[in-house]
Structure formats: C-alpha cells, structure tokens
C-alpha cells in the first residue's frame, strides 16, 4: 500500500508539471539517442562489416607456397598456373568445421580458345562459388551441379565480344582438346570474372588436361568471432605447402572507418549526455524552487529527508526512463540512417545498445538531480508556517 501510494504521488506530481518535465525528457532522449546510435553502430557494424566483405567476395585466398606473388584476378601468364593437388579440398573440409568459414571454392585457371579468340578459363564448384561471392549478378541460370559437364557461364565481356547469349552453343579448345558446352548464364561482377568462362572444376581439369590440380582456393571467413589473421594462421598450419593471403586492405579500411565513426559518435554522445544532464539539473532545480512550500509541508507532516529525496529521485528516474526509451528508439533509427548512407545497408538490431541507452538515461537523470534533490531535502519545514 505504501509503495502504491508512493507511485501515485510520483504520477500525480509528474502529471501536474508535464510541460516542464517534457523539456527534461527531451534532453535525456537526445543523450540516450546518441548512446543508442553509437552502440548500435559499434555492435552492429562489426557483423555488418563481415557481411559486406562477404558480398565483395572471398577474404582469404589459399595459394601454393611456392607460387607467384599475384594471387587474385585473371591469370596474366603461364606463371599463374601453379598447381596444388585437389586432395587439399578434403583436408580443408575437415579443418573448416572448427573455423568460422562461410564457404570455400576451388579454382583452376587455364587459357582456352573459342575460334580465334583466347579467353581465360576457370573451373570451379559452381554452388560454392556463388556462396563465396553472393554479390555477383547473373543473367540466365547457373551451372546446376559440380558434375555438370556441358554447361558454361560466360563473363559479360566475353559474351559481348563473341556475340553469345544464354542458350548459345560454345566450343572450347585447350591444347588440341575440344569440348562442346551450352551457355546457361552471363556473369557480371565488374571484376576480372567478366573476362572469363566458368565451367565446373571437373570439366576444366579434363579440358586442360590437369586432372587433380587446382590453381587456388577462395575462402570466405566471418570476421565477427575471430580476427581473419587467426583463421589464416589456422589454415596454413592445417594445409602444408599452402599460403593463406588476407584481403587486408579492405578489412583494414572498413575497420578504420568503423573505429572513426564509433569514436565520433562516442564523443558526440558524451557531449550530448553532459548537455542532457545540465538540462535535467536545471529543470529539477526549478521544480524544487517552485515546490519549496510543498516540500516544507511534507516535512512538517513528518516526511524525513529520505522520503523527500526518494520522491524527487523517483521523478528524475521516471524522466530518465521516458527519455531513455524515446532516445533508444530514436538512436536505433539514427544508426540505421547512418549505416544506410555510409555502408549502404541496415545494421542488425541487438538488444544491448537499447538497454544500455535506457539505463544511461535513468543514470544521467538521477545523477543530474542529486544537487537539486539535496537542496530539496535541506528545506526546513518551518517555511510553511513562517509563510516564506
């Protein structure tokens, strides 16, 4: 009963001065929204960054240890066709269970002839290739399975150069070996793949006369749980004769951007929180001054310092809670807007930034009220009778 009446008192008091409290709620909401936005971005973008990297493609390449320096892109010469045994794939399959891998795709590069044109030929696991490169755009279809021997996907530049469309027959020759295929899709990545012809790994090995061989393996690893460097070390340890190379520039650029953004938002959150605290302190001080007689009356009726202090702190807490709730929601929206404009995609929602910003709102409002509350508890009951 005592607590229920206490809540009734707080509710009546807040309702009586709702216009003035709204200013304080707004001040807290602004601070909480910055905290919420900063945390949502910091937590969410870590995961988002990994997703973004995956959209760009593999973030680790496995190449032969004795292989050439260039390990990505269209093979520019014979030196790129260094070999790894495809038995490595079985070993990688075992190792991958303990690592945060999204997927991996083996690649075999060779040069082929289509009539009088020379094109780069790539053999791979079609399904794994799409998993590792989810951002690729394909017109038409995709090679159905790893054992499909007659389907090919053309890079868009190759298709244009040769005037081929989906459904067209395709004849490829490598060192006198000739095979017929059917074009099932046109691939457009904006990268080196636009200049290539994709076949299944098995078909490419057979056509190139390099059974059981690979050029490299593309690996897509999640950067959320473990740093990418940890994964590369684990892969190199498990696969002798193989070097794992990280797409470091991309990772580091994203991490730098994220760190700067978080720092900027953190600084802004700090400043806005200080301003919020000052706003709440000013509102509470005015409230105490205006209610001097009410406070004196309460003390004359037998309220001790604790009871009076508790009442004002509860009001401050309610302001903090309301501001925190409003700010947390606004912060999430702000974070989404920032993420969309900077990273071009929404950040995943997590409860911790929302809870922390609500808690922060309550704490800031309560801390900012300490001096006004102390003033309230010091009011003498005699002011009521003296008529001051």
């Amino acid at each position: 009963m005592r607590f229920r009446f206490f809540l009734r008192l707080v509710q009546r008091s807040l309702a009586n001065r709702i216009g003035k409290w709204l200013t304080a709620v707004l001040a807290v909401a602004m601070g909480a929204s910055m905290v919420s936005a900063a945390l949502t971005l910091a937590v969410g973008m870590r995961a988002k960054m990994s997703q973004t990297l995956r959209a760009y493609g593999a973030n680790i390449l496995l190449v032969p240890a004795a292989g050439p320096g260039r390990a990505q892109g269209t093979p520019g010469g014979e030196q790129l066709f260094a070999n790894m045994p495809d038995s490595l794939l079985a070993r990688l399959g075992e190792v991958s269970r303990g690592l945060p891998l999204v997927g991996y795709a083996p690649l075999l590069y060779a040069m082929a002839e289509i009539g009088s044109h020379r094109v780069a030929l790539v053999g791979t696991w079609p399904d794994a290739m799409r998993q590792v490169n989810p951002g690729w755009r394909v017109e038409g279809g995709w090679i159905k399975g790893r054992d499909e021997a007659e389907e090919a996907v053309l890079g868009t530049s190759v298709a244009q150069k040769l005037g081929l469309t989906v459904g067209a027959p395709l004849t490829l020759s490598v060192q006198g070996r000739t095979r017929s295929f059917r074009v099932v899709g046109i691939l457009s990545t904006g990268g080196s793949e636009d200049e290539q012809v994709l076949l299944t790994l098995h078909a490419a090995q057979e056509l190139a006369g390099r059974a059981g061989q690979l050029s490299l393996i593309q690996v897509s690893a999640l950067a959320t749980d473990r740093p990418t460097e940890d994964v590369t070390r684990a892969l190199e340890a498990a696969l002798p004769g193989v070097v794992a190379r990280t797409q470091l520039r991309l990772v580091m650029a994203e991490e730098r951007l994220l760190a700067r953004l978080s720092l900027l938002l953190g600084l802004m959150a700090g400043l806005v929180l200080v301003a919020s605290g000052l706003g709440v302190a000013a509102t509470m001080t005015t409230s105490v001054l205006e209610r001097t007689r009410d406070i004196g009356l309460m003390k004359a009726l037998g309220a001790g310092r604790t009871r009076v202090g508790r009442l004002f702190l509860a009001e401050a807490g309610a302001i903090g809670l309301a501001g925190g709730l409003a700010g947390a929601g606004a912060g999430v929206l702000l974070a989404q807007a920032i993420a969309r404009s900077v990273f071009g995609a929404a950040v995943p929602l997590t409860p911790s930034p929302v809870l922390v910003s609500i808690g922060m709102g309550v704490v800031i409002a309560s801390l900012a009220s300490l001096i006004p509350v102390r003033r309230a508890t010091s009011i003498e009951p005699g002011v009521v009778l003296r008529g001051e």
Partner: protein
Amino acid sequence: MHEPIISMVNVTKVFSGPVVALDEVTLEIGPGEWVAVMGASGSGKTTLLNLVGCLDRPTRGRVVLDGTDVGQLREGQLTELRREKVGLIFQQFHLIPYLTAVENIMLAQYFHSLADEAEAREALARVGLGDRLHHLPSQLSGGEQQRVCIARALINQPRILLADEPTGNLDEANELTVMEIFQRLHKDGHTIVMVTHDPHIGMLADRRIELDHGRLVPVHTHDLAGESSAATVRS
C-alpha cells in the same frame, strides 16, 4: 495539576539580522488544555508555534514536548516526534494542489505509517466532506479546504494540535463550522494551541496568552469581553 504536555523554559529564538523573535519565554500547557496565543503581527506567535511543533529549534532555553527535550534531538528524531505527537492546521490550508482531498489526507498517513484510503475517507466524512473526496483543493471553498486541513491534522491521532489562525481566511459561516470542530476536539481531550488575532475565537480557549515583541505579557482584558483575569504567565 497534570504533568505539562508542552513546556517552554526561558526560550529565546534569534533569527539572522539579528532579530529576536522570542525572548526568554517560559510557558507550560497541560494535557487537554486549549490555549489561544494572541498578539500583534510580528510578536512571535508563529515562532512559538514552530518551536512547539518541532519545526524549529530554540537559540536558547528548553522546549519539552510530552516529556521529550526537543533540544537534545537530531533532525530525524525531531521529525519522528512531530509525526507522532503533533497535528498542524494552517491559515493558508497548505494542501498539495495536485492531490485530491482524500489523497491529501493519505499523504499524512503515508509519512506517518501506511496510507489507508478507507480511513482517510472516514476522516473527511467526520468533517462533513464525505461528498468531496475526489475534489482538488482548487475545487473546494476556503471552509472546505480548512476542514480537509483539520482532517489531515487529525488522521494520525496526535496528542497536540497546533493551529495557526485557522479561521483567518474564512467567512463567518465557515468560521463557525471550523470552531465547532475545534470545540468537539477539545471535548475529546486534544491539547490545542491556537494562534489567533480574533478575541472572540480566543474566548473559546481555556486560556489566552499574549506575545508582544517576543515576550509574554499579561492579556489585555479590555479586548476580551467578560474576561476577568490575565492568563497564567510566568516570564
């Protein structure tokens, strides 16, 4: 004579300035006694009431309330003594404006022990406000507000009632109603200390004391029709 429930011995209260509000006042009030404190504005009446009500401490001298020396108490103990022993009635009523009549009564219960709405309703019914429970102070007349104030002062059954000009803001009809309540309370055995300017109200009390520039002086009998002697004053 019974042991006094209120005792003041050589009490002096000096405010910054310095202003001597009470000067060496000695006074005893017995249990169940109704004492009217009279005097001009600024004579120290309210200061005396503040000291008796444990709302303030004397600069010098002793104030003893129901056997407890107020001067020896810490702030919390003083609050507790006031909560248990004293009911306060004000000229300006001093109701919390955003609480209804019944909630204003419950506020005093809450600070004392537990808020009990049924008991608060009964208290209002006893002062004739059973149909005004959920009205805000601004929706009540002066007389009604004063009756809420009286019900609030009585809700925790204090032994001492301190009233500061309780009819000062009331018209004649409401003054009569309120004074009838005081007479009933006196009959029920409450000790009443009432500050008043009005000699007719003062006449209802068992005893009148008068303050002049902070000192107790003999009551001006010419102001009190039918009154034959000065109040018992020791200074």
